[in-house]
């Protein structure tokens, strides 16, 4: 038999509650209890509202660049809902909804985008890593964190999120390959929102799916409608089950869409058609669940109004907490460089307002030392006013 089959593969796509409101009973029935569904819905609404708040903060100069999550809430939320709270969730920067579900404080995320590292000092019990700006790098850390947990006898798994764009980075390949070959239980979730800033997803992959990125490593791969919370939950259940029971990684593509600009620094109208965006607005993960709940009498306008009031208050409080924190002291960035600050850094910190770096102050004549002290005092006063 000179031509034989060396390998065959098939990837399935999961959809349960589609954009027209069709609900697949077979897969969807009992998948999410009604009480949970309401809470999940509320979480999505809250996350969406925070996007708007953040947008306004940025526009009024109270926050730096911010990436909105709008339209993608069901992806990370579905994963977060399915994962155990002590599984690692290792994300990028557009997974707020899933992080908040785990209990990550909103002000932590806000602080990050307000240019304050203290937003990254995530308390460990949430088993999340801080926001990663450099793309594609976090999946390897997810693999390492999980391997460390297994080494210590814990049965944790990890779920790591990354975009269609990020899946082009070499580190993506290395992470999947390490997890597969070293047998590390990680669920890799590619959040395909069709764009990487202005770059359409076909420039990041000409293949029919992103799900097939996992075939390279022999992983089981699934694709799902990422705007369908039921589908993301179903797909994550299957995937988490597989990974927890075998100790092996698997691969998921969630197909979704970024309804907003890439970040507040971006203007998406430069590169994509309104028609495309409008079409996707009709596939919004939030309205889809609201319609479903309304039809099933789980939800009504009064509840919606009450919810909006509540999330506005909650989010305003989170902003207040983020903005209420004392400014970091001006030499704060010296203090977490090493467990023990090297002597040279201590000198740099202590003389940062009085001398130039190479200067050994004791070499200066007394008048110069005095002038240096004066300048430092003036600078401190100026800083206090700025």
């Amino acid at each position, binding site marked *: 038999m000179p031509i034989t089959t060396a390998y065959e593969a098939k990837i399935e796509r999961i959809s349960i509650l589609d954009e027209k409101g069709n609900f697949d009973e077979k897969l969807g029935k009992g998948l999410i209890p009604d009480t949970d569904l309401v809470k999940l819905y509320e979480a999505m609404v809250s996350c969406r509202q925070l996007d708007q708040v953040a947008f306004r903060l940025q526009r009024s100069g109270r926050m730096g660049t911010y990436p909105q999550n709008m339209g993608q809430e069901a992806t990370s939320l579905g994963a977060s809902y399915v994962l155990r709270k002590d599984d690692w969730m290792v994300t990028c920067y557009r997974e707020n909804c899933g992080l908040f579900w785990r209990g990550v404080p909103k002000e932590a995320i806000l602080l990050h985008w307000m*240019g304050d590292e203290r937003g990254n000092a995530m308390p460990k019990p949430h088993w999340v890593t801080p926001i990663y700006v450099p793309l594609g790098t976090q999946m390897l850390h997810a693999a390492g964190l999980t391997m460390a947990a297994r080494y210590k006898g814990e049965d944790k798994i990890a779920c790591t999120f990354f975009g269609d764009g990020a899946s082009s980075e070499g580190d993506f390949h290395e992470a999947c390959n390490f997890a597969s070959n070293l047998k590390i239980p990680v669920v890799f979730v590619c959040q395909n929102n069709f764009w990487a800033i202005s770059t359409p997803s076909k420039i990041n992959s000409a293949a029919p799916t992103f799900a097939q990125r996992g075939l390279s490593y022999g992983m089981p791969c699934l694709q799902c409608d990422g705007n369908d919370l039921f589908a993301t939950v179903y797909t994550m259940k299957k995937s988490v089950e597989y990974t927890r029971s075998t100790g092996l990684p698997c691969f998921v593509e969630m197909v979704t869409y970024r309804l907003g600009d890439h970040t507040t620094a971006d203007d998406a109208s430069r590169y994509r058609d309104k028609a495309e965006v409008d079409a996707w607005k009709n596939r919004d993960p939030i309205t889809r669940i609201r319609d479903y709940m309304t039809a099933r009498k789980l939800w009504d306008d009064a509840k919606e109004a009450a919810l909006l009031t509540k999330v506005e208050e909650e989010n305003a409080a989170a902003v207040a907490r983020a903005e209420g924190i004392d400014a970091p002291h001006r030499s704060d960035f010296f203090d977490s460089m090493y467990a023990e600050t090297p002597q040279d850094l201590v000198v740099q910190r202590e003389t940062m307002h009085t001398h130039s770096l190479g200067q050994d102050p004791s070499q200066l004549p007394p008048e110069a030392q005095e002038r240096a002290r004066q300048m430092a005092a003036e600078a401190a006063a100026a800083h206090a006013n700025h």
Partner: protein
Amino acid sequence: MANLNLVQAINLALIQEMEKNPDIVLLGEDIGVNGGVFRVTEGLQKRFGEKRVFDTPLAESGIIGLSIGLAMGGLHPVPEIQFEGFLGPAYDQICSHAARMRSRTRGAFTVPMTIRIPVGGGIHAPELHSDSPEAIYAHTPGLKVVMPSSPYDAKGLLVAALRDPDPVLYFEPKRIYRAFREEVPEDEYTLPIGKARTVCEGTDLTIVSWGASVIQCMQAIEKSDKSIELIDLRTIYPFDMDAVAESVKKTGRCVVVHEAPLTCGFGSEIAARIMEKCFLELEAPVQRVAGFDTTMPYYKLELDYLPDANRVTRAIEDCLAY
């Protein structure tokens, strides 16, 4: 002659050289329809077509590796790395390949390529969007490293880079992308790679700087009542040590200013060379005003990290008081 900011000057240089040289191609993340996240390549895809100006997958090693191949194949690629913080994934292709190709093949293959990279702090950007890695590449033989500090220089240096037969890292200080305008000739001109500019002359002390820091130095000089000479290196490698040495031999004192961390920053090389060349003329140790030896902080504290006119002034005083 037009009144242009740095972004426009670069854009103009690209247009004019691309019109002259059909072998120049531009590639990178979001440089096409979007014109780059800083709009430096705005309008170029429309003007030159998708074959000459194209978006790539999101992978910096890929962008540089592909460009090396393009250059070996006879083109002059101009890859953009979106922010200097994302040079990291491309480090190996730049330093192990682009930099070595000519020497490892004794000239059989060469890599004429201009890597464009926004660099430095001061624009309230997210993490890894505010660094200054020029010393890393100055320490890598085979590369040239350029950093303009004004629109006029930006155009002249970029045209020179686009005609250079060797790989050039062209760092664009994003803090001054739109900070000011100046007259930039429409007509063709180049500024030689490897030559510094004396921004202003003086006799008491020499300041050596490059990129956005030159602006902070000018502010400090304005406030000072001393006669200070300011040298803008323009090129980090090969650097114009003759200009620096000549000035320091005259003034006897020197302050070097840059954003990158102090230790092993390019200021250390300048200081070491000044000692070597001007030992007998030096009246005080060279003072360095630089980023501290810490990670560049997130933006709430970036102004406390970056050298500013105050810190330059302190160094001038320290140096003169010595």
